[in-house]
Structure formats: C-alpha cells, structure tokens
C-alpha cells in the first residue's frame, strides 16, 4: 500500500470522526431538548436571571443583576479578590 493512500485514509478517517462528532452533538442536543425545556420552565417559574456558575460573590452569582462597578461597590479601592473576577468581565450595560 502506498504511503499516500495510508495517510489519506487516516485523514479521511479523521474527517469522518469529525463529521461523526457533529452528528453525535446533534443527537445529544436532541436528547437534551426535554431537559432544556424543563430547565427553561424552572427559569420561568422562579424568575431566575442568571446561571449558577460562580457562587462565591454576589456580583458573580447574579452577574446581570449586579451594579455597574460591582467589584468596587464596597469601597472605591476594594480589590476584586475572587478568582472568577478575572474570568468575568465587568457588567456591560447601557445606563
């Protein structure tokens, strides 16, 4: 077997797997539809406004409800001392 055939077959296999991953994503998304709908219902019922990703501080737990300069709300020189502060951008909002 020629080298090129072997390598092209490998690449084709990789591309096939890439396509398979897309297919798999679609299937899993489909499977998650019910769950997502359930969660949406919870959001609606409880009137939630934020994801529960960073629970350490008020301004990271409810990002969208925080004040514009939240990290400094306790004191103008107060440092943002929670690590997620480095991951979360300051709230962007039109005043």
């Amino acid at each position: 077997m020629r080298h090129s055939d072997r390598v092209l077959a490998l690449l084709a296999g990789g591309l096939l797997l890439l396509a398979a991953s897309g297919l798999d994503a679609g299937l899993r998304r489909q499977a998650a539809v019910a769950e997502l709908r359930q969660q949406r219902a919870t959001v609606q019922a409880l009137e939630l406004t934020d994801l529960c990703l960073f629970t350490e501080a008020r301004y990271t737990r409810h990002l969208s409800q925080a004040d514009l300069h939240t990290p400094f709300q306790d004191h103008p020189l107060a440092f943002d001392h929670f690590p997620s502060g480095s991951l979360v951008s300051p709230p962007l909002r039109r005043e």
Partner: protein
Amino acid sequence: MQHYLARQRYLIDYTVASLLRHRSKNLGLLLVYTLVVFMLASVMLFTHSLRQEAEQLLSAAPEIVLQRLLAGRQELVPASYLEQMGRIRGVSERHGRLWGYYYDPVVRANYTVLVPRDRPLAADEIVVGAGLARSRGLGHGDFLSLRASDGRPVAFRVADTLAADSELISADLILMAEASFRDLFAIPAGYYTDLALSVRNPREVRTVAEKLTLALPDTRPILRSEILRTYATLFSWRQGIVLVLLAGALLAFVIFAWDKASGLSAEERREIGILKAVGWETADVIGMKFWEGALISLGAFLLGYLLAYLHVFYLDAGLFEPVLKGWAVLYPSFHPVPFIDGLQVATLFFFTVFPYTVATIIPIWRAATTDPDAVMR
C-alpha cells in the same frame, strides 16, 4: 486535473516516507501541536456550549427587572412603586420579587434564597437545590437550620430538592415561603427585592423601560435582552482572554515550527539537492514541503479537536472544573450540551493551521531553492 492529483499523491508519498524516517522528532512535534489544539478547542467548545445554554435558558427570564437604587446601591423596593408607575401600555403583568443571599458559615458558601410565586410552601418548609443538598448532605425530610437576622436559629424542613439536571441554574437555591423569608431577613411587609414586569410585545420593551425610568427616576430597569447580551459577551470575552493567554503558547509553537523548518540539517539539504538533480522542480519541492506541514497540522487539528470533544462532552470538561470552581464551594455539576457551530471550528482551524503554515513558507522556499548542481560539487 488528473495529472495534478497524481502528482500530489506522489509528493505525499515522499513526504510521508521522509516524515517516517524522523519518526521521534515529528511525533514530538505532532504531540505538542495536538496539545495546543486540544486546549484551544476545549475552551472554545466549552464556553460556546455554555453560552448557547445560557441563551436558551435565560430567554425565559423576566422581560424587565426593576431595581431601586439608593446612593448607588440596590435597595428594597416599596410595593407602592407598583402603583406609582401607573398604567403602562404593553405591560401585561407586574409583581415584586423576593430574593437574597444567605452566607452559610458551616460550609462557607453563599446560597441564594428565593420566594417562588407559584409554589405554595408551609412556613417551615424549604426546597433546596441539588448542589446545596449535596454539600450539606440534605435529603427529603431533613432539617436545615438558618440564622435569622436577629441571631436566632430557625429550623426548616426540606420538603423537596430541585431536579439534579437543572443544577446549572439552581444548584445553590433555597426556596421558602414569603412569610418565612420576611421573618428570616427582617424585611418589612410592603417591600420587595426588586420588581419583575412582563411585556407581551418584544418591540415595546424598550419604550416601557424608558417610561419606567421617567416615572420612577430612582430605579433602574434591567432588560432580558441585556441579560442575554451580558452572557454572550461574558463567554466570548472569556474565550478571548484564554486565547490571548494561549496565544503565547501558540507563538512559541510557531517559533518552534519556524525553527524546525529553517534549521534544515545538512542531510536534508543534500536530499533536496538530489531531488532537484534527478528532475524535481522548485515547485515540486515546495509542494512536498507544503504537504509535510499540511499533514502535520491537519493531523494535529483533527486529533486535538476530537480529543477536546471527548473531553468537554463526555468527560464534562473535567480539566476546567478547578478553574471554573474558583473559590466557590458550591459548584454545579452539569453536563454541557454540545452546541457546535461552523464558525467555532473554522476559527479554531484558522488559529492553529494558518500560523503554522505561514511560519514555514520562507524556510521552505529557502530549502527548495537549493542549487540542483550542488550534488555535483
């Protein structure tokens, strides 16, 4: 066309043979490259999936949340505001929300305490989120004691836990009755945390918000579209930050690739000389070298991407958990739903394959223009 393809196959033949001869060196390169792609792809897939999920879930959030600001801080809203705002056309429903935070010194975590509107609870009953239940070891019928604002302990019976599959939104929630909430935090009757308004027609939301700020100048409306926008920018911003950080790694890798491509050994130089002497043209050598780069970068891209896919969606992005957890004690356990879009994959491809190939153009050209008669000298 056929001739062109046949020629490319021959060039690949030669490239593969020459890659195989320096197996360990090229395998090392492939490995490092795959790792770089894997990290980038993991971040992209994970944040994109979170962003999509946020968008889907939070599109059910209240259309307008009205906060009252007092000296720049959020303050309780008197119920009278609901009357004061007057009749605003388009607002189909308005009511006060009661929610707040509770710091639990036992596990040093912040909980979100919330009064549900459509779920009647007895005064001593609470419903807790699955994450909280896990970290405090609570089950149905257990008791949780919370300290009221005046210092006395109040015991609540866990009537229910929220579904585990909704942890992404509800891991740290405690739901309780309105009376218990007011009692626990000493919030006088007639005051709410904020107000929620529903607006039927999405086109009217902005006008409603403008009218609200006019009618109630000390309030601030937060629109649903702003919430969605906050999350959209949050995640792409984060992706960007991680990319900027990883760009260093990428740059180092590109320099490595450049160095590898330009630091041709005497042996390789001699080989190219031989190829040219026996009838290969500069363009053939460039094509051959191009395939070398293309095979390595394509291979690394496919491998890295597929590994990242497995990592994020089958292993629940295990490697990122510590990063996301930060100092948070309550971390939701959730399975990201695979939202993938072509832009993500195309960007990733651009980010990883393009710099590598560009970095090697000039070294390749240098090597390919070796004099064909060099072998005769």
